[in-house]
């Protein structure tokens, strides 16, 4: 019958257990979150005041690039995959992921891939310095030699993501307990099913675009070289065909998390479950036909500008459905504000702000003013930090008692929330103003007129960074000691994961649970 985990380090190295692999994903992501955060603080330290104080401009560019790459591919995506690993088998009543060995392979590629990516910092010519979007010809003709390592790191990260996504789809479609019909699945499972589909659809396109770069740089092809008949704009089209679905890959699972947390603490079922499912699917579909809204200023024909503008604005409809559903779930609920709920409510409010600034950016004629300014930086940090990062944080507080069997310290959790909340708003809200005033992104020095906003942003960034150190302390101390958690943890929460003891046994369901 059920056997426990193996002893020693090989438990982690050779594991096929979804909980072990989920934990490794989450710790890896946490480590990358701090590394990417340190890079962000280098940026904010340099931008504390005008003039060049701390780093060379070229190193500054390496920091913006590595910060973006590490946060996107190293922190946010693995964190969601880690949550998927931990939660999806439990939520659908499966014993494990569908393909457990491939699951461990997906994980172990990542440390190697990021070792290779981070090692470029120590190579001749330095790390990639062309921004996380690596536009050609900056990333081809004018790239440092380390770009080759960057390309191959992206290749194997992509392989990891594709295998992870295949595993998640196979688990959801094939491993559900009897009676767990598709429309009974928790929304986190639904959003991940659709996210996994997006991953399989676009990670190969990313592999394609970096392959084109590799060929242009080393083998004399002309994809992005006009002298041979190619076009640097082609790079942007292929990249953003990957890139726009990618940003939904980083937010759809967040929608699922928030849709789990809000009903628990409002003590009401989720309002509009099926509309949530359809809205998620609509967002995924639209994500494939809006990519060129990142390229309004590149010189597209007017028909293209209009198409991508209107298609982009359409996204506000299903996203609005979601926001109204969350609000309606809370309406007249018996609400309490434990830490996960604080993060979830902040998610709804702040993500909506990010959504609105996205709507502003979607207006093609207005975008000509905003393009490549700090307004864009403010926009995507508002959807990624209080969006992706807050939802992941909320998920950790919400499910940590289930994972380790201990309750976190509520007072410290709330302190973490308020520090993070104030820190992030202080960091990113002023960027709207510096951006509208015309401050360009990815520049280590700036005009005096932007000095005040930048100083505020830098203070906020260090506050936010400090809040995450507190988070680390809370997580570690909860795992080590902490009050014993009950099986239900919260007040009558919904879902199969709450029917098993805390901590969840090493193998959760050795026979399928009954789903009513």
């Amino acid at each position, binding site marked *: 019958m059920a056997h426990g985990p193996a002893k020693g380090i090989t438990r982690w190295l*050779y594991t096929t257990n979804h909980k072990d692999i989920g934990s490794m994903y989450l710790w890896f992501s946490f480590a990358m979150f701090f590394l990417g955060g340190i890079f962000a603080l280098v940026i904010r330290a340099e931008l504390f005041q005008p003039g060049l104080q701390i780093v060379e401009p070229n190193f500054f560019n390496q920091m913006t690039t590595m910060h973006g790459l590490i946060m996107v591919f190293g922190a946010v995506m693995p964190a969601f995959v880690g949550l998927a690993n931990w939660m999806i088998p439990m939520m659908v009543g499966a014993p494990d992921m569908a393909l457990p060995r*491939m699951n461990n392979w997906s994980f172990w590629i990542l440390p190697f891939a990021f070792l290779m990516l981070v090692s470029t910092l120590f190579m001749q010519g330095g790390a990639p310095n062309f921004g996380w979007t690596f536009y050609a010809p900056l990333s081809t003709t004018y790239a440092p*030699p380390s770009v080759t390592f960057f390309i191959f790191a992206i290749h*194997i990260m992509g392989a990891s993501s594709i295998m992870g996504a295949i595993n998640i789809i196979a688990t959801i479609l094939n491993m559900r307990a009897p009676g767990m019909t598709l429309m009974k699945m928790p929304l986190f499972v639904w959003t991940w099913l659709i996210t996994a589909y997006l991953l399989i659809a676009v990670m190969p396109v990313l592999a*394609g675009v970096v392959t084109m770069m590799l060929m242009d740089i080393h*083998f004399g092809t002309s994809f992005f070289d*006009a002298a041979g008949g190619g076009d640097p704009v082609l790079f942007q089209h*292929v990249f953003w065909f990957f890139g726009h679905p990618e940003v939904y890959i980083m937010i759809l699972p967040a929608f699922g998390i928030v849709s789990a947390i809000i009903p628990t603490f409002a003590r009401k079922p989720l309002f509009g479950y099926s509309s949530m499912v359809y809205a998620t699917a609509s967002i995924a579909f639209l994500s494939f036909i809006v990519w060129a809204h990142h390229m309004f200023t590149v010189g597209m024909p007017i028909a293209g500008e209009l198409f991508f503008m209107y298609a982009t604005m359409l996204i506000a409809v299903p996203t609005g459905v979601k926001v109204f559903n969350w609000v309606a779930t809370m309406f007249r609920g018996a609400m309490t504000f434990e830490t996960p709920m604080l993060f979830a409510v902040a998610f709804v409010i702040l993500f909506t702000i990010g959504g609105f600034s996205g709507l502003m950016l979607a207006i093609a004629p207005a975008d000509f003013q905003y393009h490549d300014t700090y307004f864009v930086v403010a926009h995507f940090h508002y959807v990624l930090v209080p969006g992706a990062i807050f939802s992941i944080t909320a998920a950790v507080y919400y499910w940590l008692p289930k994972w380790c069997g201990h309750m976190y310290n509520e007072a410290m959790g709330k302190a973490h929330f308020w520090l993070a909340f104030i820190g992030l708003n202080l960091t990113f809200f002023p960027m709207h103003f510096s951006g509208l005033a015309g401050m360009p992104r990815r520049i280590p020095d700036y005009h005096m007129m932007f000095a005040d906003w930048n100083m505020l942003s830098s203070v906020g960034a260090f506050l936010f960074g400090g809040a995450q150190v507190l988070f680390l302390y809370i997580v570690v101390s909860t795992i080590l000691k902490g009050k014993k958690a009950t099986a239900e943890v919260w007040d009558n929460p919904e879902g199969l994961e709450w029917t098993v003891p805390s901590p969840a046994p090493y193998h959760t369901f*050795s026979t399928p649970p009954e789903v009513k």
Partner: protein
Amino acid sequence: MATSEGTYYVPEQSKLPLWASFGLFLTVFGAANWINGNSSGPYLFMAGGLVFAVVLWNWFGAVINENMAGLNSAQLKRSYVWGMGWFIFSEVMFFAAFFGALFYIRNIALPELGGAIDDTATNEFLWKGFEASWPLMNTPAEAVSGDAATVKGPDQSMSFSQVGSIWSWLPFWNTVILLSSSVTVHFAHSAIKNNARRAFNAWLGATIVLAIVFLFLQVEEYLHAYHEMGLTLQSGVYGTTFFMLTGFHGMHVFLGTFMLTVMWLRSVLKGHFKPDDNFGFEAASWYWHFVDVVWVGLFFAVYIFG
């Protein structure tokens, strides 16, 4: 070995994934070093490839042995089916990126460089004298600097209009060969479902022969292009798209041929596959149909309307 818990399958710990990750890392790390001109590159690359190959050998071996030992539940078998299906979808999207690049270059990038789409200034000031055409024989660089151009176009193209008769046209015969191989692999599939082992081996063997002939003809075509037509990877965006699309397709054909050969050897040497349990072969045949469909797309987009 694996254990079955209750009605569910939970494999034991495995060293394979960690070694597979290490092998993959060493391979690409070596490749990057090699391409960047570091002398250790080729050795790292080959060592990585060796590790990876050994791991895959053992991994597939483990999966096959588990299945033969009857450890795989119907549910796990379905998971493998889903896995292969979605893997092929990811491959479809990889090719989509290159097909998309081809269409963008032909229909948007080149006409713009030629001044056709409302920014004639690009043509006038940057690439004066360049006229957009496809297949692109004269690159923008050639239009501006003549013989001193950095990127030169090919002397001849691969498109159908260049040849007199379709019967003497290699891509046509390659299409016939590859389409036939899809039929033969289907016959093989029908044969194993009817438990006709000899017919299965024969049809699968025929498929592999056709595959090898296809690959041989592709190599012939490449040699011809490089040595007699001046068409190379470097000859402007026409050579770029031609070789990247057909080259990636050829690599996939090679991989597919390898898969089918392994399946053939498994059947001939070990008597693997049963009428109702042959997914290893079926997955390879799906892959084979997939590379066939890609070829049909290539035949039209690159050769006929090239």
